[in-house]
Structures are given as structure tokens and as C-alpha cells.
């Protein structure tokens, strides 16, 4: 396993937010965490990237115990997060933002990485001198993902990449996620758009109130009655008409 959380507990003050979460991600996989608001999905990502301290339990990465390691070290080691809400540097240009992504790398030859990011997101190339704060929501999301890629991560943590995006962009972002994965980056994905996430992922975990209540290959969760009712919007509507556009790339 590339990344493995073993019985991880996390507290906010007195409140236990993760009550012993065990999640593993194998090299080359897309794994997704789904669940309601407040189930602990974002907390799990923040814990992996070292922003939330662990109360107990262990996080292994590439055979090394990384519990309690500082976030910037984890980036050096190959764990990089594109945070929810994007967190781009608004006063810096697109290029400067991308350069910041490579900040932790020893090898500063970033030309080929820039090329790769611009290939994935041609829009960013058009806007490379524009300051991050003036980008549209979709462009900011692209920039956040692109910036994370500049660190050449082994594992890319994505927190709600489709939030606030137009339907067409949602489809586009998800196909790019697949593309990044095919190019060799392991991905741990948190999404409210569970249908799309499950269609893209290899495996999935369902979180409820700080616990993993279900884990399985993604495809079978798509047909799981409980999951359908709770997270896929199924069972509530007679026509079952889903607004999520089907994937244009197949």
C-alpha cells in the first residue's frame, strides 16, 4: 500500500471528528471518500497532509510512518493537496502560483512540469500572466490542481474539485482527474458529486460521522441501495432524471 491510515482518531477540542478511520490507497489507484457534510472527509484529507494533528493511530506512506510529520515535509515526500475552496494565492500570477507548487522540490527544473500542466489545462497557459484572484472559479480549480501537480506528488489529494463548477466543467475536471491518474499519479478524491466520483474511482469508502461504514470497489457502490438513497439522489425522484451530464469522453 502506498498510503495507509490505521485506526486514526482526530479531535477538534473535545469533539472526536475521526473515530478510528482506516483507509488505504494503493499505487496507481483513484480512491474516493463519499459521505454527508460533516462526515469527516475533509478532516481525513487534512490529517493526511499533516494540517490536523492525529490523536491516536498511525499513517504510513511508502513504508514510512508519517504520523505527525510537518505538512511541508509531506509535500517533499510526495503528498500534495489541492484544498477545498482552492486556496490559490490571489495576488500572484498563474505562473507564480505554479512555481510555488514546485517550491518543495530539490530539482527545480520545472519546464517539463509546466508543459504537462499546460497540456492538461490549456486555459492556464492563456492566462499565465493574469493574477490568480482574477480567474474564474473553474480556472482557479484548474490552477489549484495544476499547482499541486507541480510538486510531482505520488499521491494527489483532491477536496471537492467540482464544487461550484458549471456542469460542462464538472465533466471536464473529472476526465482530467482520470487523465492525471493514467499518467501515473495516485489520487485520493473527496466529492459531494458522488455519482461522478464513483464512476471515476477504482475503490471507495463511505464515511458517516467520523467512521468508515462501507468500503468496496466503486462500481458496486453505484448499485448499492443505501448509497443510492443517501448520496446519489436516487430513490427520491420518480423520473430519476439526473442532471449530471454523462461523460462526453466515454
Amino acid at each position, binding site marked *: 500500500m502506498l498510503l495507509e491510515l490505521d485506526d486514526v482518531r482526530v479531535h*477538534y477540542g473535545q*469533539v*472526536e*471528528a475521526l473515530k478510528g478511520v482506516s483507509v488505504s490507497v494503493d499505487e496507481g489507484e483513484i480512491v474516493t471518500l463519499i459521505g*454527508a*457534510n*460533516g*462526515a*469527516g*472527509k*475533509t*478532516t481525513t484529507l*487534512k490529517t493526511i497532509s499533516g*494540517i490536523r494533528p492525529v490523536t491516536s493511530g498511525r499513517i504510513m506512506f*511508502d513504508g*514510512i*510512518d*508519517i*504520523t*505527525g*510529520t*510537518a*505538512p511541508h*515535509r509531506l509535500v*517533499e*515526500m510526495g503528498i500534495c*493537496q489541492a*484544498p*477545498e*475552496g*482552492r*486556496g490559490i494565492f490571489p495576488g500572484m500570477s498563474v505562473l507564480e502560483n505554479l512555481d510555488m507548487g514546485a517550491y518543495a522540490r530539490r530539482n527545480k527544473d520545472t519546464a517539463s512540469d509546466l508543459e504537462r500542466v499546460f497540456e492538461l489545462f490549456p486555459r492556464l497557459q492563456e492566462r499565465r500572466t493574469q493574477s490568480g484572484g*482574477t480567474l*474564474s*472559479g*473553474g*480556472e482557479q480549480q484548474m490552477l489549484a490542481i495544476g499547482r499541486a501537480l507541480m510538486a510531482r506528488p505520488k499521491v494527489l489529494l483532491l477536496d471537492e474539485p467540482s*464544487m*461550484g*463548477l*458549471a*456542469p*460542462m*466543467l464538472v*465533466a471536464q475536471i473529472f476526465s482530467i482527474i482520470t487523465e492525471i491518474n493514467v499518467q501515473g499519479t495516485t489520487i485520493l478524491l473527496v466529492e*459531494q458529486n*458522488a455519482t461522478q466520483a464513483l464512476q471515476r474511482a477504482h475503490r471507495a469508502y463511505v464515511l458517516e*460521522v*467520523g467512521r468508515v461504514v462501507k468500503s468496496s470497489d466503486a462500481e458496486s457502490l453505484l448499485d448499492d441501495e443505501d448509497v443510492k438513497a*443517501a*448520496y446519489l*439522489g436516487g430513490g*427520491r*425522484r420518480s*423520473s430519476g*432524471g*439526473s*442532471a449530471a*451530464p454523462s461523460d*462526453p469522453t466515454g
Partner: protein
Amino acid sequence: MSRIPALPKLPALPRVSLVDPLTRRWERLPWWGKALVLLGVLAFAIWYPSTLEPKWQSVLFFPVGVYILLALGLNVVVGLTGMLDLGYVAFFAVGAYTTAKLTAEGGGLTAWECILLAVLLAMVAGVTLGGPTLRLRGDYLAIVTLGFGEIVRIVAQNTPSLGQARGITAIPHPSSLAGLDFGIDPLPYVYLVLAAIVLAIFLIARLRRSRVGRSWAAIREDEDAAELMGVPTFKMKLWSFAVGASTGGLGGWIYASKVGFINPDTFPLNLSFLVLAAVVLGGLGSTPGVIAGAFAVGFIPEYLREFSGEETVLERLNSITGGEATDINEYRFFLFGLALILMMIFRPQGLLPSRQRAAELAEATGEQAMGAVAGVDEADVVAQHTGDRAATLEVPDDVDLPDDFIARAEEAQEEVLRLTDVTMQFGGVVALNDVSLTVRRGEIFGIIGPNGAGKTTVFNCITGVFRPTSGDIGLDGVSLVGKKPHHITEAGVARTFQNIRLFPNMTAIENILVGADARHTTSVPGAVVGSPKHGREERLGRAEALRLLDFVGIGRRVDEAARNLPYGDQRRLEIARAIATQPKVLLLDEPAAGFNPAEKQALVALIRQICRAGLTVVLIEHDMEVVMEVCHRIAVLDFGEKIAEGLPEEIQSDERVIRAYLGVEIDAP
């Protein structure tokens, strides 16, 4: 890859937990219990100084008493309103010089006659400084006030009629009053400053509990959101400055009439920082806190002066620092600075922190480091684990929107909101190009389009955040262009934000009251004296706010801090806060973002209910299921231009819309 060792964990810092249980116990007391405690404290404050030697009575007057008074005033500006003022001593100086000039050297007035003038002139100084500078924020404002503090001192230093460096001497004492003989004996002055402190506490407490105090808190929490909820932010910041300045002026009057002489050295820059240190040390925004802080800042250095083990401590300090001080007094500020640093490490929230301040610091634990949406996930987690399941999913059908909120909406004209050829340019970028829209009374009007198409810019133009480059926006036939956001809110437009912008450390009901205050008219003096209108508005506002919380389905969360609400409830609260301004048109910016399907269904129900009650809704949303289900009509923007407008089914089959936005045709719900 080389193994990177984990950093050793820092030991948890010890927590000073003595005072917190006391605070909690205080909060649980009934009103008469609190009154008894306060009377007891007052009785002690009257009795105790009389038992002291005159020397300590002097210390109680200055620095202790005067510092407390100044700290209370500065706390209004820094603690309550969140504006950093580094030149507060200027107002103290204005009060003192006014008194000196008008009473000494043939000024002609008695000290008592001068008191109002000293306070008023300090207030004028505050408004004079504030008028041109309060548009600045944060660091800039701090530097401007720093400069102002110095200017006042330097003007005094160089103005012959103010005595230049010599200052003004022979300032007369006040005449006897109420059996207190103001002469050389310090005790009467202790009572004088005590009276001033009690008065200041009382008046500031009245303001805090009124719409004035709420508007200050809202400005502190999120100034832009406050303006958009109808708070005249500039005016309220000016009032904050004026109230703070007048307290400083009162302090100046008391000081000058007791001490009898002043010169520019009485008002060093240093004093501004000491008073600020007192406010921060005691607890920003907390009245008992800043009193304790000012007491510590004033008293500890004096106490150290009298330290019994003086000789040995002095020697030890000399040997540590390699100094050759002959008096421990020379180390006063060294020790004091050390105490401040230690205090800020171990109890950054201050001695007796206010609720808001404590919450803010709890928040600053690296959560913001990656720019995540402020605390949303955390709030959810906390809410869920404290016994509440996720966000409210039901809208109670039996609670109607109170009539008060829809009264204006029903008076609206048939075409309530109209945009005519609105163009918005930022530099060379055209964000909106000749956009025209008409929103009819009582409908739900959707605006959709790709990211960056200009949807939120439309809202920002309507609400006055941006002034359109050309074109007109009319509400009920009256143009909104060029009006300030709070005027537009008063005129009847309210909004929510894409990234929730509640006042996070205010409670749910306080958030709504800020919105409701947009319709209230109690003035600052009215709030101070507690006019009947003030009482009526407060009662009415609270009752309405409670009903509104019920209406959006979060009635059981009245007194919870907004930041602790689950994500979904935060969105509901934001909608309720907007409705509280009694809008004709309600603008919702991506209310379904981050919702799962169940939460979206609940939102759809809520929006329908708002519409049924008679409000007009304009909705920006990416979730097509929500849009197609609730909207009566929809406009589509792309690259700042309207490319389509029509009924949901027309939009869904419009070739241009599909190409630009939808990607594929979707089924009608």
C-alpha cells in the same frame, strides 16, 4: 527516498484555567445576582481606597484609574469595532489641553464647566481624524493613527499658546462637589475617576447591546458583508471612533484637573502602546478584561517600584543583563515587557477574554493555512458530534414567513428589478456586456452560465459592490446605480454569498438582528439613553428574528455561534439574515454548492416556500436539477453576454446554451 523523521511534538502548554470557571459561573447568574455582585464590587471600590496610604491612593488615580478609563475607550475602537488605533493618546491630550487652556492662565472657565467641552473637542478630533482615514483598513489605519498621535504632541510642543515644551501650569482643581474636596488629597480624585469609569462602562454597555454594538461587531467580523446587510459601515466606524475619543477626552480632563500641569511629555507615544497593551492583555472586547488589563499595566510597574526584596532582585537583574542600574525602577519596563510576552504565549486570549475573542483564537490553529473555506468542515464535525445529525433537512411546513418580512415585497411593482444594457469593465476585461434583464414580482428567476460568465458580477452590480461602467439598474423604477450597498439594502435588495459570509463569531440570532437592524432607525444617542423607540425595536427585532429562524428550520440554534453551525444550517442562516432586511428581491448566489442530493431537496423546498410567501428570488446556481425544478424563468450568461432567456424547458433545448454550458441535453424533471 531518505527517511524523514517526525518532528518531536511540543509539550502542550499549560492552561491558565482559574478564571474561566469564574466567567462561566458569572454567566449563569440571574440578573439580580449579577446586580448584587456589581454592587458589591462598587462598594469595595469605594471603601478600599480610603484604607490606603495617600501614596497608593495616588497610584490608584494615576496610572491605574486613568489607564482603565482610557482602555475602556480604546476597547470600543480596537476590541469592539476591530480598528487598530496606535495613536489613542492624542484624544487624551486633546481633552487635557482643552481643559488646561480654558481653565488656566485666564481661560475663564471652571473645571466643571469645561468637562463637556473637553469631551466634545476630543470627539471632534476623533471625527476629524476618522473622516478622511476610516476608509483605510488594517495596517494603513494603524499607521495613520500612529501619525496622528505624534502630530498632536508635536503641535503642542511647537505652539506658543499651548506653552510649547514648558506646557501649561496652574490648572485649577475642580471646586468641591458632593462633599468631596478636590485639593491636594488624592482620595476625592480616585472617586472622580471611579465615577467616570462607572459612567463609561454603563454607556458602552448600552451601546453594545443595541444595534450600534451589533453593527460594530459585524464590521469587525466582515466589513463588506456588514455593508451589504445594510450597516452604514463608514458612519458606524466614525461613531466608534467618536465614542472612543470622547472617553479619552474625559480622561484628559480628569488628569489635567488633578495634576494641575501638563506638557507634551505627559502624552508620549509610549502611552498609546501601554493602553493598547492593557486592552490586548485583558482581552479584546471584554469590559472586565480590559479593566483587569489596565489595572495590571498601571499597577505592576508601580508595585515593582516598591518591591520589598529590591536590593537582591536588583543585583540579580544587573548580573543577568550586565547593567548597572541603581534603582529597580529602571527595570520596570523590562520586567513588564517580559510579563507581557509570557502572558501572550500562555494566554493569548487575554485575562478575561470575550466570547468572540476566545472563539477566534481557537480557530487560528492552522486551519486557515491552506485557505480552506473557513471552518466549515470543522463546524460540521463539531455539530454532528455534539448530538445533532447533519444539517437540518426538513423545512417545517407549518411555519409561514412572518408577514412583516413580505410587506414591502408585496408592494413592489410588477417589474420589480430591471437591468438595462448593463456593462461592467475591469480595465480591459469586459465582465458584462450590455446585459438586460427584467425580474417580475413573485417569480424565481434563475441565472446560469459557465464559471466566469459574469453571474456574480450581476449580483455585485445590483448590490452596489461594483458600479456598472454603463447602463442602468432599477428597483421599482428607481435607479440603484451609484448608491452605496447599505442604501441598496434599505431600498429592498438582499443577498447571500457564494462562499458563506456570516459573522462567524456572532450567534445565529445576532446575525439575523444585524440584517433586521437595516430597517431600524434608533440613533446612537437613542441607544445610549434607551429611548422608547430603541426598546420597541429591540423587542420587535428579537421576536421577528426568532420567527425567521423557525421559518428556515434552525429555530433550536438561536444562541449558537454561526461558525459552529453545520454547513447546511449556515446557508439557511445566511438566507434568513438576508430576509430579515425585508427585501423586495432576494439574491441567492449558489445556495446549493457543497450540498448532497438530500440537502438540495430541502433547499428546493425552502426556496419554494420563500417564493410562495411572496418574495421575489433571483437564483445563481450550477446544479441544474435545482435550477430546472424551482425557476420560473432562466437567463443564461456566457462571456458576459446574455445568450438566452426563457422558460426552463426552452433553456434546456436551446442549442447555444447546450453548446456553451450544459454540454448535453438534460431531461426535464
